[in-house]
């Protein structure tokens, strides 16, 4: 017997880029994260051919979940066609043989930063969110080990204090993204930099959400049908962005999260932030038989 017989034949890289031990670790950490909703599980973030802070956490989670039959959609600020989104999506196709898509409904895995698609996700879909800063307590407690103790004690008074002071100072809550939210009545998470508009979509959702921070080496999850409650005061209701009555100038759709486009004359136009959702609306307007799934928000309201 020679050494050659004992080793695997040479390949340029392992299936799904990460080696099996890395994927095994990530799978175990994901299971733990699902078992303890909202708890930040530390993991050994591997090197991937992308700079830390560009979605390496999400990339590793998706690579682990990948199989040859996977259909992958990647969203960057709501759009499928930004450089970052395209290159990540192509990477999945190249190292995992995954099918690329821009259609929320066709995807099995959706990796995203900043947005959750407007169309409702199903039980068989997984949402992977890239997280730059997983620690909701970072602003009030710079010492990470003390912050972990505070999570252990469910000592979240100071997070409310931050909201209290925003109300005192500005008369309303100005926390725009990463709105601290209580998962399953126990752990407060930072739901990645999604807008307040999207936080409500995590509550009692049909799909599994994995949140992964590559630079900070933390992974946490919101399992399906789990309570996600943004921190609010009894007498100050949670308020999403005022996009209810904004109309997309491309697709003439009203009541979804919009990008504001400042115009030369000082006014502004709006376009749908979820770009493929917009594409589908336009194609439908043009008479094509496009299937659009149920949306979380209807007429700018969610209930």
């Amino acid at each position, binding site marked *: 017997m020679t050494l050659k017989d004992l080793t695997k034949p040479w390949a340029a890289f392992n299936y799904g880029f990460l080696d099996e031990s890395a994927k095994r670790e990530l799978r175990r950490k994901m299971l733990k994260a699902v078992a303890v909703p909202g708890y930040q599980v530390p993991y050994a973030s591997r090197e991937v051919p992308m700079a830390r802070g560009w979605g390496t956490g999400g990339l590793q989670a998706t690579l682990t979940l990948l199989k040859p039959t996977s259909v992958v959609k990647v969203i960057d600020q709501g759009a499928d066609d930004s450089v970052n989104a395209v290159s990540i999506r192509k990477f999945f196709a190249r190292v995992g043989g995954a099918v690329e898509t821009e259609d929320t409904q066709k995807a099995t895995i959706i990796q995203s930063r900043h947005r959750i698609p407007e169309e409702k996700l199903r039980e068989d879909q997984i949402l992977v969110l890239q997280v730059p800063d997983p620690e909701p307590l970072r602003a*009030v407690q710079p010492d990470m080990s003390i912050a972990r103790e505070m999570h252990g004690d469910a000592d979240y008074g*100071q997070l409310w*204090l931050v909201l209290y*002071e925003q109300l*005192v*100072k500005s008369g309303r809550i100005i926390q725009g993204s990463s709105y601290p939210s209580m998962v399953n009545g126990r752990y407060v998470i930072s739901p990645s930099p999604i807008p307040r508009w999207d936080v409500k979509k995590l509550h009692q959702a049909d799909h599994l959400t994995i949140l992964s921070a590559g630079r900070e080496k933390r992974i946490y999850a919101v399992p399906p049908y789990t309570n996600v409650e943004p921190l609010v005061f*009894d*007498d*100050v209701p949670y308020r999403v962005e005022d996009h209810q009555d904004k109309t997309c100038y491309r697709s003439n759709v009203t009541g979804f999260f919009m990008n504001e486009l400042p115009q030369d004359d000082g006014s502004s136009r709006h376009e749908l932030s979820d770009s493929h959702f917009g594409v589908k609306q336009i194609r439908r307007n043009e008479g094509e038989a496009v299937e659009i799934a149920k949306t979380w928000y209807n007429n700018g309201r969610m209930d």
Partner: protein
Amino acid sequence: MAALFNTVPRHEPRLMLAEPMLSMRGISKSFGEVKAVIDVDVTVYPGEVLGIVGESGSGKSTLLRMMNLEDTPEAGSYHLSLPDQEERNLFTLDRFERRMLRARHIGIVYQNPHLGLLMGHTSSGNVAERLLIAGNRNFADLRSRARESLQASEFPLERIDARPRELSGGMQQRVQLAKAIALEPAVLLLDEPTTGLDVSVQALVLDTLKRLQQERAITMVLVSHDLGVIRTMADRVMVMRRGRVVEQGLADQIFQDPQHEYTQQLVHAKL
């Protein structure tokens, strides 16, 4: 300061017939070789001010830390007369229960305001945090109760949204005090509350403390090395030295007729 003794009517004489509000029995605590507190008993009756005097290293602050459940002794028990906790030795509580008990029933004012306050948050926010930890989630209520509490500690109301780091030492102590009394604690612990303040500010803060004590009959434990402060505030005095209580009794008794050699030295050094 002389006026304050006449303005507010004194309460009924506080006889030691009532159930004690706070009782500690057989407390011993050591740090390695050093025995900080040796077999100390403390009893505080409702509405009374117990002064603990002693030199640095006599164990008085360690004792206060244990009253605040920040530290656990090697031996001893601790009871507070609270509706739901009467039978329990508070040293057996777990971390979470301790924290809740501290938030709801124990107020503390530290010598160093950095220990008791979040310097980067507003003063009213500091008071509100106490209420938030205790589970209050109503903004309007938090706001008004923080204001009330700051008013009670004679904090200037136009500055309630200033950060403690922008405030003077005396003001910072008032914020600490407002935070401590916000939930009407069963016992208010004062760890050298006026040390480090100049004499006139010290007098004003003591004035506030005295008034609060008389209006609300708050049970207080006051630790100080300053006999003047103890004499102004305390009903009863405990003198500690090298981890032991060497003498205790009514304030007048201790100051006029000290029995123990050490107390005699202490009183005469002052006078």
